[in-house]
């Protein structure tokens, strides 16, 4: 594997949009317009780590209100109840809806936590020299993180659908809670964090 050359070491970079390989002018940090598609060519995404850190920390901060505050308020025949993400899952379990409990638990709790943990892990380890096998695992981890992120929107959509449908005056109403807002922000911020991270940085520290 030692005969593999990175584009960066040859002063080349690949366009992020159309994959055209472009020769970078010196110094290699200068941004360049792609001759084929007109997009910007970066050898590495600019300020990738700083941006990912900032977005990740912001999403971690918002993860607290997203779980503490209710995401949904339900009135049923005059009786009010409000649910957080976790109490919603517990409610499904109590009612015996194992499948729904599993879907919501995975999309709203496992996926966001997994994303935040794996980005944190990648950010901490990106500067450490690693062997090819390890770098490959980290790249795979990044790929999964980027792929599953959008599925945490399930809860936000469910709250929207229930809010739109369950407006039956005195019988039953559903209102979105402030936690839903924070949770939506967590989803967007973690997705932006994953997009800002440049997986090519993982390979820059590879041990030969």
């Amino acid at each position, binding site marked *: *594997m030692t005969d593999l*050359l*990175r*584009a*960066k070491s*040859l002063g*080349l970079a*690949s366009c*992020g*949009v*159309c*994959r055209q*390989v472009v020769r970078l002018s010196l110094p290699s940090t200068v941004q360049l317009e792609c001759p*084929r*598609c*007109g*997009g910007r060519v970066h050898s590495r995404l600019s300020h990738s780590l700083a941006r990912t850190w900032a977005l990740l920390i912001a999403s971690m901060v918002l993860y607290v209100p997203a779980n503490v505050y209710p995401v949904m308020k339900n009135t*049923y025949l005059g009786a009010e109840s409000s649910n957080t993400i976790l109490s919603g899952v517990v409610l499904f379990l109590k*009612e015996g*809806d194992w*499948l*729904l409990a599993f*879907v*919501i638990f995975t999309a709203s709790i496992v996926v966001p936590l997994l994303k935040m943990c794996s980005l944190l892990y990648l950010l901490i380890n990106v500067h450490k020299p690693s062997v*090819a096998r390890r*770098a*490959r695992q980290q*790249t795979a981890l*990044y*790929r999964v993180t980027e792929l599953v*992120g*959008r*599925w945490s*929107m*399930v*809860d*936000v*959509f*469910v*709250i*929207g*659908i*229930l*809010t*739109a*449908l*369950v*407006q*039956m005056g005195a*019988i*039953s109403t559903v209102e*979105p809670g402030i936690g*839903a*807002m924070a949770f*939506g922000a967590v989803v967007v911020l973690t*997705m932006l964090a994953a*997009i800002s991270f440049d997986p*090519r940085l*993982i*390979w820059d520290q590879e041990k030969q």
Partner: protein
Amino acid sequence: MLMACRECDVLQRVPWVPVGKKVRCRGCGATLYHHPRGGLDRPIALLFGALVLYVLANIFPLVTLDIGGATRETSLVGTAWALYNHDMKLLGMLVFLTSLAVPGAILFSTLYVLAGLRLQRSLPGLRQMLALLSHIHPWEMADVFVISILVALVKMSGMAEVIVGAGLYALIGYILLGIAASASIDVFVLWRRMERIDRFPRGQLSLEAGR
């Protein structure tokens, strides 16, 4: 041709593979590109079908709720609107963008790009459209929305009568056709075709190169 992997930056010479084959990175194993079957005609046909179903999914109600004769129905835009109206303006906009606007934009711009390439004409804004597609793709969440409807349906089935509308069937069909279409599209291959249109204007292109 020369390609650098977007995940590990390994520079490599890659062959132009036959239809149905894909090329993997020598460094990390990521897919560099795949040469889809069916040329341009297959994704165009699939996306036209998807377009019809997308329009139907927006016209007809997705779900109707019936509690003792009092009914209420919702659509894609109705869901975003409900959040917007309940003091959740940003959340409503996010739902509008991810469930309706971005899927629609992707559908239209993909069809536009494919039509331009099929007709071998450099239609205005063709490149910008194709470049836009790579940027907005992660924000397309119509498939997540369908799963959410199913979750909401089960949740409500205990307290009211739930009627599945024509819109939901159309939405599911739209997503299935969309998945099939995106499997028959590779952005890198589209850029190569785009390059050829510029080099050889309409008429000068051989049949072989157009396939």
